């Protein structure tokens, strides 16, 4: 028989546990709701298609920051995706279970835990100063590649590992080389998972600020080359909030960011669901 106090503690504890969930959900609703409520009225065609004019009043829109963000993501992906996939293929298909592999895994884990600003310091020392790319979109992108590499590798590796072993065995039994098996069977089967990894990295690139703040220069002008400075949407929010009085513009830019992040999250969930269904369906 349960005594009354055990029942009461049970009730109290469950209330606490549910309370935790409710508070977390409320925090999210308050943050997103507040930003959208304050920001959405400021978003219109003119805001999206004019450049920021600078100054204390923060006049203008966000066009050049959108362009800078796209340039930055473009160059980052060109480098990140091949290296990330290569590294994941090595770990999932080739790496023997030995000390070297453990060192590589330790390196990836450690890199994943290093704060953005340390990557920024590194990018500032190597790309901005030693290689004299100066404060530029290129310096920012190279720094971002270093920062996102662990995410890209681990997510891609998971996608490769999810491909059933029977696929690999069937291919090898047909007399393919190991690389033919990887390039024609494993990688194509893992494409939805790899796409999810890329989208995840794009999401993180859009939200990243600290490492870019110290490598990209932050010019609000429309970038005409990759060796020029620029500012991403996220950096623009920071500059508006800290250096101008235009809180309405900062909120509108933040609302744009929130909308992009919500879309990206929905897309990754959709893709991840499809991928799992497909693998289950075949094997």
């Amino acid at each position, binding site marked *: 028989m*349960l005594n009354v106090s*055990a029942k009461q503690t049970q009730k109290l*504890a*469950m209330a606490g546990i549910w309370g*935790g*969930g409710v*508070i*977390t*959900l409320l*925090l*999210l609703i308050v943050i*997103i709701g*507040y930003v959208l409520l*304050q920001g959405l009225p400021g978003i219109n065609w003119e805001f999206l298609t004019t450049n920021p004019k600078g100054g204390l009043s923060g006049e203008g829109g966000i066009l050049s920051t959108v362009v800078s963000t796209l340039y930055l993501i473009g160059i980052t992906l060109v480098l990140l995706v091949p*290296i990330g996939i*290569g*590294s994941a293929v*090595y770990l999932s298909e*080739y790496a023997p279970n030995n000390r070297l592999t453990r060192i*590589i895994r330790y390196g*990836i*884990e*450690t*890199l994943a*835990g*290093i*704060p*953005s*600003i*340390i990557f*920024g*310091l*590194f990018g*500032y*020392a190597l790309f901005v100063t030693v290689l004299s790319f100066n*404060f530029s979109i290129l310096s920012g992108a190279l720094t971002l590649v*270093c920062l996102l*590499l662990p995410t890209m590798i681990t997510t891609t590796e998971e996608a490769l590992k999810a491909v059933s072993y029977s696929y690999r065995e069937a291919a090898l039994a047909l007399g393919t080389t*190991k690389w033919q098996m*990887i*390039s024609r069977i494993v990688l194509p089967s893992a494409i939805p998972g790899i796409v999810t990894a890329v989208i995840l990295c794009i999401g993180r690139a*859009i*939200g990243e*600020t*600290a490492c870019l*703040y*110290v490598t990209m220069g932050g010019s609000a002008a429309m970038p005409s080359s990759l060796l020029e400075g620029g500012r991403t949407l*996220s950096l623009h*929010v*920071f500059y508006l*909030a800290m250096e101008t009085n235009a*809180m309405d513009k900062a*909120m509108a830019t*933040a609302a744009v*960011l*929130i909308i992009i*992040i*919500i879309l990206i*999250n929905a897309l990754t*969930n959709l893709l991840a669901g499809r991928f799992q269904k497909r693998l289950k369906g075949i094997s």
Partner: protein
Amino acid sequence: MTRYFTDKLAKYIVFISGFTAVVILLLIALFILREGLPAFSEIGVFDFIFGNVWRPGIDQYGILSMIVGSIAVTIVSMIMAVPLGIACAILLAEVAPSKVRNILRPAVELLVGIPSVVYGLVGLVLLVPIVSNIGGSGFSILTASIVLMVMVLPTIISISEDSIRAIPASYREGALALGATKWQTIKGVILPAAKSGIGAGVVLGMGRAIGETMAMIMVIGNSIAFPNSLLDAARTLTGNIALEINYATGTHESALFATGVVLFVFILLLNSVATVFLKRGSNAQRLG
């Protein structure tokens, strides 16, 4: 013949890209140390770490107040985030029906995705005025800690939830069969069995907290004075680097890299503790 050549070539290329992460890690350590060492030797390690005054204008470089600032926001945010995060993890892993889970889990994922400047902006516009009603300017350790609490919640929730889920069903069934209530099962069996994983989640959350930069700059006030209360403005190690690196030269620049070295050491320590926790967790589960 060519397909065997391609096979070999592919193997080497893939092998090399496998090493990129390690090479980057070594380069980061190398560059930050190389740039930071002159400051350590000119200022002295002790004076740098325990020095109270940061005034680049008169060549005074002591980062104690920023170490205190970073540790203070980390601890205060953890005091709020740990109970909330563990409650949420228990709810997701043990209590909530799948309908609730399907709402709460994407919500937690969304919290991860929100850019840190957006947290900073909401903190600046919404929270700073509220805290200033309690006292001070509103730009304070307390404000920064509240913002950080929300930012580290997802880390604590997801790692704790994973470790609770990894506990074999037989544990629960055993406890319930002995007549324990759900809560007695959770408190007496589940949480003790998952404590290593939860510990790892908390420590990794601390790593995220101590490394956060932009949101901190936006709400903590960035004062170089030594903070005496939670309502005082302060500056974090990360904020110190970000605010000054772009115009610093000479010893000042080197001192900022040295600040990075100190931050780096903090992170490595926290990561090793987390690794120990995770290893212990997986060993315990293998035995169970």
